[in-house]
């Protein structure tokens, strides 16, 4: 199966051919590199921008105003923070113009820990992104959803923030992307640029389909009736693995992959918590004013009388950065043992 970087690349190819995407740009997004994670290799409408995040976001806004469908990349989410007012402007343009203007644009940016990125290549952006009204925000945890969410993002009439969990960009999927060839190595030969000089290289794209994951729709990835786990991005596969481990211990955890952070699938979360009575929210952004805190607050307000235990949040520690040493990184953001411990504690919680 394709890995996530390949999935994103294929979705962008589909969008170039079928959805009117004429600009896919950012730092090193065009040839020869095709993106620092190779997610944009071989695409025909890619181009390199100056090293200027504000210019990238500003130009995407202008292109969208002119009826284009730009896909702009901020190379690492850690460097998006000097564009906050432009992101806010993109989010408020339709509202502030009383519906006269809309901005169909996608901003894609790698997020999160897991590549030994140290202070400035490990940051999350979900808490900040969900504080900017007017955007739709998605974050896949697997290649198929990455493909489907990117297709939806490129068809959207509004700005979409596509967060790419960088620790998962090389992880192969478990479900085939429609049109993807059976053999991984064949796919790699078709769409991965060769090492060394690739100036003469041209990709051979599979015949792809309009498989879209609707924005706002979450997914149950593990069934369970004793507790609910809600997560997304890098921590989602860890939660699924934790649920598998606990199942062997007789604890049945339902795992929800949110996939969309805004708008999110509250109905799915609500039904699950009503069934299980216990919930753990997991993500790796810093724990103070974390997006999961919004979910906890809403759970308390709307589902208090259904709860058997206080809703819990497991998130990154509120530190100035994620330290480079493995010991520091592992202790800074949720890992599998942390999730298992939190779930066991939740399962055994008694008033």
């Amino acid at each position, binding site marked *: 199966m394709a890995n996530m970087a390949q999935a994103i690349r294929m979705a962008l190819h589909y969008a170039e051919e079928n959805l009117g995407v004429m600009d896919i740009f950012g730092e090193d997004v065009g040839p020869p590199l095709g993106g620092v994670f190779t997610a944009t290799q071989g695409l025909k409408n890619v181009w390199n921008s100056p090293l200027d995040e504000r210019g990238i976001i500003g130009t995407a806004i*202008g292109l969208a105003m002119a*009826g284009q469908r730009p896909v702009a990349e901020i190379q690492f989410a850690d460097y998006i923070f000097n564009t906050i007012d432009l992101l806010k402007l993109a989010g408020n343009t339709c*509202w502030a113009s009383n519906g006269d203007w809309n901005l169909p644009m996608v901003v894609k940016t790698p997020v999160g820990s897991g590549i030994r990125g140290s202070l400035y290549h490990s940051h999350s952006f979900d808490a900040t992104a969900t504080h900017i009204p007017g955007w739709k925000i998605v974050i896949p945890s697997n290649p198929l959803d990455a493909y489907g969410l990117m297709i939806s993002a490129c068809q959207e009439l509004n700005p979409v923030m596509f967060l790419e969990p960088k620790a998962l960009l090389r992880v192969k999927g478990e479900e085939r992307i429609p049109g993807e060839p059976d053999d991984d190595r064949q796919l790699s030969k078709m769409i991965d640029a060769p090492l060394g000089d690739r100036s003469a290289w041209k990709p051979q794209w599979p015949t792809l389909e309009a498989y879209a994951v609707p924005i706002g729709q979450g997914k149950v990835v593990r069934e369970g009736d004793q507790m609910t786990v809600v997560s997304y991005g890098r921590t989602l596969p860890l939660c699924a693995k934790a649920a598998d481990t606990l199942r062997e211990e007789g604890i049945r955890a339902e795992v929800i992959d949110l996939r969309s952070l805004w708008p999110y699938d509250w109905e799915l979360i609500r039904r699950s918590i009503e069934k299980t009575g216990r919930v753990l929210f997991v993500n790796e952004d810093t724990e103070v004013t974390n997006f999961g805190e919004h979910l906890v607050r809403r759970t308390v307000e709307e589902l208090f009388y259904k709860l058997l235990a206080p809703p819990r949040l497991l998130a990154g520690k509120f530190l100035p950065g994620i330290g480079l040493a493995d010991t520091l990184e592992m202790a800074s953001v949720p890992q599998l043992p942390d999730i298992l411990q939190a779930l066991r504690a939740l399962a055994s919680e008694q008033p």
Partner: protein
Amino acid sequence: MSRPRLLNREDASAPLTLDRELLVRIHDLMVKARVLEERLIQMYKQGHGFFWIGGPGEEAFNVPLGMLIKKGQGPEFDYLHAHYRQSATLLALGEEPIGALRQMKNTATDPYSGGRNFAGHFSKKAWNIAPVSSPIEVQYAIAPGTAMAQKRHGGDGITIVTGGDAGTAEGDFASCLIWSSRPANPLPILIIVTNNHWGISTSSEGQHGETHIADRGRAFNIRSKTINGNDPAESYRELKEAMEYVRKERKPFLLEARVSRLYGHSSASGANFVTNEVDCLKEFEARLEGEGTLTRQQMDALRHGYAEELAAAARLVRDEPLPSVDTLWNHVYAEKK
């Protein structure tokens, strides 16, 4: 310290060189724009608006700009990324002044923002007028995008972006210079700085070391010029030339126009008439009268007519309803029709 000598400054006593019909049209629009701004200030002082900001004093530049824009929707027409001092440009494009009064009062009928934004924050997709924002200079970072679409589209549509001199301290101004002049894809964009020498209460003399802001374009090999924006004839000719260059060559042009700020920054600084700056309308009228193009009586009658018209419009607007609370959530997202 004396102000630097303006490049190519036309001798103030030389005859106006535009034809009479054009001069009369420019004057008409300048008067209308000035009266509109004075009416907006009056509304603020009477409590019929929370905040005023606008462009009185910039009419000599902003009117010719609006007259020269290729108006329409889509990349074959010109895009305007304006800042909040351009009511004169909007009127020159053909907009009705009552819209600005409605925005001032925040009525439901405010055609630019439905009661959501400050005065002077125009927006009109049908004419490619991008929404004006309060964060200054972001328009410089955005403008390369529409220009890029126009470059791809072909034709002679250009992007025009305007902002003040104080804001050129922001990185977005440099972004615009860089993105417009990238050798990989030079862009058809007219980058304008209306230089009034002020950043709210702070004089540019202590903040900007460059002799001419336009000189910064040379670093990027952008054709650049500084003009007297208080002279409507010079403004018209120089804007026309700059636009023709951008339309034909599909490359950027940086135009700095020296202008006056006749009522201060905004209502926050009192919106009182400033007596020690050039009044472009007063100077223009003296020349029109001196050359026999218009009589004082004709010009006074014109101003009086517009003053009456806008006073009536203001009375109408005063009674219009504010947006209903149930419109609060409208347009957070665009929806497919």
